[in-house]
């Protein structure tokens, strides 16, 4: 256990800052992290394609070549259209802006710097904490481009709605489900990666809730619910049932191992309704069910196809799943959620 704890500690920039700059460094790091979070309250990190450096200096020095930083109320940052910047976090927490990007390697000695750059294609980011000439990556399992710009929700429905913007972004779990980078079809058993991606997203963004994974635990010893969310202090619970639609098959195979169409989602909704009925008999807390569908249906796709036209690839984008009205009318069933997973379609050539 000691080796594991040491290995974990060595990976964290917090430990590295303390190692290099001592307790004064940790105090500076607190100020820096607070400044970073304040900055991201007003500036979407996806704008920062030119890069941002945010730093503290233990003696409040500015980098050389920088004439003056402008003291700004953080709310003003939202009105500035910039793709790059350098921000100095003062000792009292106020932020000073220099509208050019200063390489964190050029920060004065005694600085702790933070660097972030958003890379539009493929929608990834670079993020690290810098002390002297050493850069320490910021570990980020949230799925958002920056570990410090993760929105928080106190409503599960709002969180699930926002997740739609995540499914087309690079995600270490969702990226592994595809047979190819064109995202035409899944590899076998993609559901655990979908569950993991959604679980991590909710763990990092849903406030005052406990996210429990239930891949093996059966509600009634037949089929499992995927995620259980509990808000103990608000006295309620939610069950999330995840389904995927589309085709799956091993690489190189000339036939699909599994194909799921709309009926699978409807079946999932019926299953969830049954779980809710059996759950209501045992659980005293109000319980809400969510059916969440990862939809990668394509029209006319065979297992040997390596590309798809836009017409066939996007055919189901606006074709919502039709659920039985009696399911939708249940007061313990939330509005079904569907994430359409877009393929990379063939480019349309101008004639």
């Amino acid at each position, binding site marked *: 256990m000691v080796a594991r704890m040491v290995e*974990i500690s060595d990976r964290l920039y917090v430990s590295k800052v*303390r190692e290099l700059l001592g307790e004064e460094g940790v105090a500076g790091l*607190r100020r820096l992290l607070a400044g970073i979070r304040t900055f991201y309250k007003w500036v979407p990190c996806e704008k920062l394609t030119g890069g941002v450096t945010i730093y503290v200096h233990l003696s409040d020095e500015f980098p050389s070549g920088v004439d003056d930083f402008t003291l700004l109320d953080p709310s003003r940052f939202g009105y500035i259209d910039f793709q790059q910047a350098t921000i100095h976090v003062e000792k009292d927490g106020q932020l000073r802006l220099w509208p050019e990007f200063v390489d964190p390697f050029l920060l004065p000695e005694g600085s702790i710097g933070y660097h972030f750059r958003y890379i539009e294609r493929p929608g990834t980011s670079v993020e690290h904490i810098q002390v002297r000439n050493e850069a320490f990556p910021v570990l980020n399992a949230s799925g958002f481009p920056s570990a410090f710009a993760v929105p928080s929700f106190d409503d599960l429905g709002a969180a699930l709605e926002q997740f739609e913007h995540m499914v087309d972004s690079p995600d270490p779990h969702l990226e592994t489900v595809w047979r190819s980078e064109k995202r035409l079809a899944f590899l076998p058993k993609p559901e655990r990666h979908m569950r993991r991606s959604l679980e991590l997203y909710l763990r990092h963004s849903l*406030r005052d809730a406990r996210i429990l994974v239930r891949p093996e635990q059966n509600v009634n010893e037949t089929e499992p619910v995927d995620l259980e969310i*509990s808000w103990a202090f608000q006295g309620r619970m939610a069950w999330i049932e995840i389904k995927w639609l589309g085709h799956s098959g091993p690489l190189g195979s000339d036939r699909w191992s599994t194909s799921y169409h709309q009926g699978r989602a409807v079946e999932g909704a019926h299953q969830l309704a049954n779980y809710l009925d059996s759950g209501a008999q045992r659980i005293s807390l109000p319980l809400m069910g969510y059916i969440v569908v990862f939809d990668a249906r394509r029209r006319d796709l065979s297992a040997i196809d390596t590309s798809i036209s836009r017409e066939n690839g996007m055919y189901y984008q606006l074709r919502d799943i039709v659920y039985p009205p009696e399911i939708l009318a249940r007061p313990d069933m939330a509005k079904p959620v569907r994430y359409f997973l877009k393929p990379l379609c063939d480019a349309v050539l101008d004639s």
Partner: protein
Amino acid sequence: MASDSDLSRHREPHIEAFSDSLTVVERLTPIAGGAMLGEVHAFCYLACLLSIFEQQSPTSWGYEFTALPPTLPYAPEITEAVQKLEEIGLLSRKGNVYLITEDGRQELLLWSGLKQLEARRRYLDGATGASLVVGVPSVGNDLAYEPQLQRASKLKQPRELLAEATLSPLFEQFTALRQAVGSRVQDLLTPAAVYLSFLSTEAESDDSPNSQF
């Protein structure tokens, strides 16, 4: 003769619970716009764990925690304190989020002079500081894998936390933590962040079902 309900109406919440609750809300306000009730409990529990990391006895914390429901730390004194603080205007509430008022800030300033509360401020600062690193929602979820809470979760019933007889796994983790970060740590942000990161890896490796139902 006073009934139990009469007595409970007149019993004052512990000063530690009062101060801890107000401190957590104040510290989380710039980070997360305030604190929800479960978050106040969670951060107070994490602060208590940090005191145990520094080899203080759990009984010296001033109030006790229960796992209720099994994955959550809960102390009735905290809930009482938060309700009382709101009643007397030191906290306000927006939906389910508690915010510190100007009167609350003034009161916290007064309490900062109380010697009996001095030591625990370090633990609360370490605990709330960890949310600068991992974010507020993650802290509660990572904390669910602390051995005491995990044990209660697997037993699927409410359980007293930090009882002497059950502390061995926690002591083992904290011995390892002290070896990793050192035992003479001024700002407890570092051990808090390392410990939560450790617990999140416990979450990844835990294959057993952990639902309460």
